[in-house]
């Protein structure tokens, strides 16, 4: 479990059981069978919403086609009953398994797409399945009634029992979601949603996590679909694969609160009764009012409260809790490594090249970073410094050349694989997860490096102490200052126990004193034996911290060596100030 979540987990589960008990209690006394139906449908749709929330809310992979799984569950349960006489008590779990399989089949090709392409492709699946279902003659399949042993077949004469089963389904779904949310699974999803690239750079294998999320999501959705079929006693392609079905969880969760445990529940609790009642009272002369209400609700929410009701209410009325005090690191800082710079090369780059079209962005670059040193990579704007880091880190593929870390090649690997090798990277533009506390922003790096929960927690705490951010551990990242954000990126990279840090413009935009603070942190790290490669423009800072410089210009290495020497080097001055300047000075 993530740090500090035990209490939240307990609280959420208590609330969940409380709500369930109250809900069932209330529903027990509702006599009218139409209202009972609504009470049954609310938890079913809410569970569907929870399933969507896992993939699209937490994970940020917007899906417009969750009806695929809902329908798979619905038809599977129904057909199993019709053709095999299989009781839905087993048929629904069977549907759940089918949901997982469907997730794998759908996810494997579709996760290659991003953004709106992903959403549109997901839309296409249930609609295509819908047509296939009509073609195969499954226009309208009724569930056969079993009057002899109704309970055995999940058929109840008393509709209140349906509500009971539905609430049970919802409770299971919410518990699943809660476990996801409070574990590294949830954190990985949130990180991917916020910035997939930074998440990958922190070592998170986005592809795998997204697939897992889709599977969990598909399973819950299929369960909801199966139960829905039992309640309605009939399935048609449109009722379980249709566009409105796909829209349900989207609208509900957006309305109630994306990426929150209670969002889909709130959304379902408000919208389902609203539309059903509207349908009942106004449905005769306003057929379709349900769709209009959903549409209006969705537009209103996305414009006025884009994160949904839950977050808006929570932000307005509930003060953020005081950050819990951070425990001391459970280990003392690792044994002091020799603090002088050694000559042992840790990273060796040879003839590295990269072109974009006709432009040689990186041109036969060769240099080494020695273990325990700080190498400054400088050069005029557009010299190719960030591109170089992107090549080393796995963000871009190199056209040619070599780069090895302790003898092992860094090239041809995906970003998270390079991270696992022991390379930590920060980016020019800081990406944080503003709503999450600082400690969570940092621990992502540890999860990405494959550390166990306990080890990850330890490393994250240590990283915060090393960067001087321990006091802000519980603060939401959105409230941090610029300097603190930069240190956070550094801490996140440190939490993964790297052997080499690649820092891209860590000092950008900092004032004098803030700069000094960060430089002190880097000094300390170097004393502890860390190897650092840093791109910077703030020259006076670099002169104080770097052991050696490598100067890039127009993608090629111009000079390298001790800082004082490099700065006096004629070709370097020329690169920065221009040939004529030099000529003038000597005129």
């Amino acid at each position, binding site marked *: 479990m993530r740090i500090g979540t035990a209490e939240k987990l307990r609280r959420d589960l208590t609330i969940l059981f409380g709500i369930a008990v109250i809900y069932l209690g209330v529903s027990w006394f509702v006599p009218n069978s139409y209202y009972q139906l609504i009470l049954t449908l609310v938890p079913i749709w809410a569970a569907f919403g929870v399933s969507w929330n896992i993939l699209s809310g937490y994970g940020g992979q917007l899906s417009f086609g969750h009806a695929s799984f809902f329908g798979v569950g619905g038809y599977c349960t129904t057909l199993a009953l019709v053709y095999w006489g299989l009781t839905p008590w087993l048929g629904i779990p069977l549907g759940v398994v089918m949901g997982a399989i469907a997730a794998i089949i759908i996810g494997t090709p579709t996760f290659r797409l991003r*953004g709106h392409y992903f959403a549109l492709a997901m839309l296409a699946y249930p*609609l295509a399945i819908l047509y296939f279902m009509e073609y195969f003659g499954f226009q309208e399949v009724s569930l056969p009634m079993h009057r002899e042993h109704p309970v055995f077949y999940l058929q109840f004469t008393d509709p209140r029992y349906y509500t009971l089963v539905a609430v049970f389904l919802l409770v299971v779904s919410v518990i699943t979601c809660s476990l996801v949310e409070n574990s590294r699974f949830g954190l990985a999803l949130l990180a991917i949603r916020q910035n997939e690239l930074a998440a990958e750079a922190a070592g998170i294998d986005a592809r795998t996590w997204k697939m897992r999320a889709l599977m969990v999501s598909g399973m819950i959705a299929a369960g909801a679909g199966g139960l829905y079929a039992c309640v309605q006693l009939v399935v048609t392609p449109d009722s379980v694969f249709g566009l409105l079905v796909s829209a349900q969880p989207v609208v509900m969760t957006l309305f109630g609160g994306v990426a929150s445990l209670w969002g889909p529940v709130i959304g379902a609790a408000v919208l389902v009764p609203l539309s059903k009642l509207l349908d009942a009272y106004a449905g005769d002369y306003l057929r379709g009012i349900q769709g209009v209400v959903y549409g209006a609700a969705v537009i209103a929410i996305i414009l006025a409260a884009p994160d949904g009701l839950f977050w808006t209410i929570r932000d307005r009325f509930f003060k953020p809790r005081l950050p819990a005090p951070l425990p001391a690191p459970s280990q003392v800082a690792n044994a002091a490594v020799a603090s002088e710079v050694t000559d042992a090369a840790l990273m060796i780059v040879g003839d590295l090249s990269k072109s974009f079209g006709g432009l040689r962005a990186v041109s036969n670059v060769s240099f080494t970073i020695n273990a325990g040193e700080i190498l400054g990579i400088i050069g005029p704007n557009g010299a190719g410094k960030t591109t170089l880091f992107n090549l080393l880190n796995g963000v871009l593929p190199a056209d040619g050349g070599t780069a090895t870390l302790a003898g092992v090649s860094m090239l041809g690997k995906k970003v998270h694989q390079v991270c696992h090798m022991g390379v930590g990277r920060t980016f020019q533009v800081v990406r944080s997860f503003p709503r999450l506390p600082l400690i969570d922003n940092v621990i992502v790096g540890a999860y990405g490096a494959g550390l166990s929960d306990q080890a990850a927690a330890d490393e994250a705490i240590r990283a915060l102490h090393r960067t001087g951010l321990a006091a802000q551990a519980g603060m939401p990242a959105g409230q941090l200052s610029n300097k603190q954000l930069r240190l956070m990126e550094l801490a996140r990279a440190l939490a993964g126990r790297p052997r080499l840090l690649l820092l891209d413009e860590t000092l950008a935009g900092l004032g004098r004193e803030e700069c000094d603070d960060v430089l002190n942190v880097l000094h300390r790290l170097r004393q502890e034996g860390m190897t650092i490669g840093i791109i910077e423009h703030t020259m006076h800072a670099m002169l104080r911290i770097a052991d050696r410089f490598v100067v890039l210009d127009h993608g090629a290495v111009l000079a390298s060596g001790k800082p004082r020497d490099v700065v006096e080097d004629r070709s370097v001055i020329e690169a920065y100030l221009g040939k004529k300047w030099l000529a003038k000075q000597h005129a």
Partner: protein
Amino acid sequence: MDLEALIESVLNALTAGITIGCIYGLMCIGLGLIFGIMKVVNFAQGELLMLGMFASFYLVTGGGVLAFLGPYIGPFVGALLAGPIVFVFGAFLHKFLISRVSGLRTAGSIDDGHFGQLIVTLGISLILQNGGMIVFGTIPVTVRTPLSSSAFLIGPIYGDATIFLNKAKLVACVVAIITALVLYFMLEFTRIGKALRAAADNPTAATYMGIDVDKYYRMAFALGSGITAIAGGLMATYLSFGSFVGFDYVIIMYSGVVLGGIGSIMGAFWGGMTVGMVQQMSTLVLPPQLQNAAIFIVFLLIVMLRPQGLFGRSAERA
């Protein structure tokens, strides 16, 4: 099946494919303007098509304004007039809703505002579809013209094989081509057209030139709405439709635009034409229920295998 009948089927499917393809092409140009130029994902494009159909319907039938033009010209003028009507509607949509989730306002954000656009246009789509059912009723209608039940006969070619060129579809096809050409000329040769392309190409630089990018985005959206509406009005002459008709065509439109290549407006036309051909040719081999599924499969294939389309410039692949 004997050879003659086969040839006749194929030729007729081809002809239908070309004529319907041109209309689809026009429809896709509309989305191309919005999706291609403004990079706005518009989920409600099918509903704009639907509005075009109904606008034309109300203009022409019953006590409609154009009744005096008679059933031969009326429907097509109605289709053309549906354009400006939906143009205005689109402008309002953009001004009050779409502009809040697109354009320079969201240009810097992680997904270019696509999440918000998808949701807002989903909401608009739901409202229009269901609201349309309330306002227009549930009984499918059509814009009747005697042309839809008569055809030119070409042939006989090869034995008894004859091509039946449905007159309504033919006229619609011609109108579609002319509209597309007019749009093409406007974009290529007028100052406004060039400014529109400039705003799409590089909004920051366009602002430096003094181009009011917001205004042009609104124009692009309204234009895209109007063009698709005209296509709708043309389709109204040979289809019967209700308020949910749009949703069948959303996937067709996206397929066409993606196939033609994002950013290429005329590419969208060819993309739409191709999709139309595929659809008509599929009637030769697939049963009716699966024809629509075929379009979805085609869409998925395009998006997976060649997202940059035939004429496109950029792709958004993992």
